């Protein structure tokens, strides 16, 4: 199994890399990191999961530019159902456009989504949601919202979805899982991580520090289900 982390030196905000740290402890695999200027591993090789996460607004533009030559290969992988886990503002890179005031920044155009920056306003929210019968906990903190015709990843129970007032969060398209939730999503949500491992075909892989992770999850879930402000 091969897992590729795209541009870890730029996608290094908000503790999102905790997801890769946790996955490494759960799942023995060939982990590849592609840096700016390198040819991505997925271009010449098969990969099982591509991970990209939170980055600055300037980095979004650099990464769109860097990935544009590989657009067709990415489309092929997406059409084939390869898993993509995109956290924070990473999914916007794969969308049609990122609207920043009067400026429209073209994305890779692989996902039917349009992002709209709200700078300098920052949207912060805790999140409680649903996914395939399980509860998802997390948070978002961002400078943009989005609109999309794609099915959502999570159903919103509390907190901010794709945009203000939206009842849904993120996108799910074939193997592509995109969410505005950031930070160590996989560490925070042992059930979701279990589902992801199973979906990757790694049913034998066990959750690292499962007892402690579930304890932390349970405490958080109870708080989020209470009267906590989002």
């Amino acid at each position, binding site marked *: 199994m091969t897992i590729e982390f795209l541009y870890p*030196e*730029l996608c*290094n*905000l*908000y*503790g*999102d*890399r*905790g997801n890769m*740290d*946790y996955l490494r*402890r759960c799942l023995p695999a060939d982990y590849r990191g592609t*840096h*700016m*200027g390198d040819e991505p591993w997925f271009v010449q090789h098969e990969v099982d999961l591509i991970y990209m996460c939170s980055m*600055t*607004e*300037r980095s979004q533009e*650099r990464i769109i530019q860097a990935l544009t030559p590989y657009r067709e290969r990415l489309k092929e992988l997406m059409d084939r159902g390869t898993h993509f886990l995109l956290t924070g503002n990473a999914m916007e890179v794969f969308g049609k456009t990122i609207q920043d005031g009067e400026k429209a920044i073209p994305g890779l155009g692989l996902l039917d989504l349009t992002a709209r920056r709200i700078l300098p306003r*920052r949207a*912060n929210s*805790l999140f409680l949601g649903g996914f395939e019968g399980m509860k998802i906990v997390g*948070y978002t*903190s961002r*400078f943009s919202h989005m609109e999309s015709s794609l099915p959502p990843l999570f159903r919103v129970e509390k907190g901010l979805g794709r945009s203000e007032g939206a009842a849904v969060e993120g996108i799910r398209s074939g193997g592509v899982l995109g969410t505005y939730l*950031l*930070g*160590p999503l996989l*560490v*925070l949500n042992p059930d979701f991580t279990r589902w992801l491992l199973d979906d990757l075909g790694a049913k034998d892989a066990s959750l*690292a*520090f499962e007892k*402690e*992770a579930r*304890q*932390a999850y349970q*405490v*958080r879930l109870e*708080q989020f289900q209470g009267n*906590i*402000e989002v």
Partner: protein
Amino acid sequence: MNLRFLFAMAVCKCVYHGMRLLGRQASYLPGWFAVKLCPDYLRHIRKAETVICVTGTDGKTTTANLLSDLLTSAGRKVANNRIGSNTEFGIATAMTCSVALTNRCRVDAVVLEVDEHYARIVCPKVRSDYIVLTNVLRDSLQRNAHPEYVAGKLAQIDCPKAKLILNADELCSSLLLPENPRVYYAIARQEGDGVTPPNRVNDCPDCPRCGAPLRYDYVRYAHVGHVHCEKCGFASPAADWLATELDPENHRLTLRHGEEEYTLPMLHDSVFNIYNELAAVAVLSEMGLSMADIRTALEATPLTKTRLNQLRVKGVTVVSMMAKSNNSLPVSMVFDYIRKKPGKKAVILALDDLDESKSSERIGWIYDTDYEFLNDENIVQILATGVRCWDHQVRLLLAGVPREKLVCMQDELAAIEQLRCKDLESVYLLHDMSSYSRSVTALEKIRKVLEGAL
């Protein structure tokens, strides 16, 4: 004289003195009245001979307090906003305290700690003579997002005559406001400095001029160090004030300025506090103080107690340290400082913001923080406490800390009872700024546990 301004000042002073009589801190509200009654309040108020603004991500409180103390020791009358708010309103309060009701300035200098979001508003209005930009580093994600965003805010400071005091070793801030006059300080390569960034976070991986990966001549934390670009020749600015030798054992540092070298007291041996001290020395020297006067003032000035408190209990050193939570880098730096101290140690993590259970439960910062530094054979026990103790526990396990070294309890006082005191040489209590008063209680509890056990 503008009547609206005078009325606003009279109200501000009344509110200030009224609140002080009631035992209140009066740092924010008096200034709020002043600015609401007269939006241009800060422009009208009479300025001291020297106005120093200190802004940036980390170290601004310590640097501003140090500057105030040093100037006071050097015989200057100083006003400052150390009692509280560092926004426009807090600064309006501090400035009001620097003048008489007739708007006659009563002090020689004003030292203002300025929030980085307000710097573009405040610095021009108070007609800053010096602006210290300590650094632009990763901070609370809710408010400050990422350093590029904060640097963009600071780049809007329109104060062309102000002399900037900048850390040449910190690239996100050292290149800001290129039209302003400037003075750089830095610490030369020291034993133990590497050439690979040692932390999980690095916010300047690429050359600001051409985008190629940067090479480090030395780096001590995050991206703080001296860089060059092999592709386009870009390099970190040269330092006007360069600490060439650090001697923590004798609490001395050697500072080079031009052809001259000076030996000065080192107020604290942590590298981030040395940078703060260098910034203060550079300002004072630019103000015209002699190095002899600066040295005398440094010798008379202890470090602010809120940040670091130390006691000895039956041969065990107990250190209480401020480690700003929700902010990965200062905490990583504190972890690094602790692991480099000799002897068997216990570490108590009481980092969580007290409001965290209510509104701001965001723990991404702990995955930007180098908990791996705590996976050290001399750190024999770690107590994870606070409302997020279970998250700290998982993070510590992921960092490779063995389970048997961990205690995980929400109540820090109950956790302290689990301290294993045998062979312990030091205990480090790490607390957030918001939990300072609780840390005092915790410190007392540690004393009792150690006295009972030893």
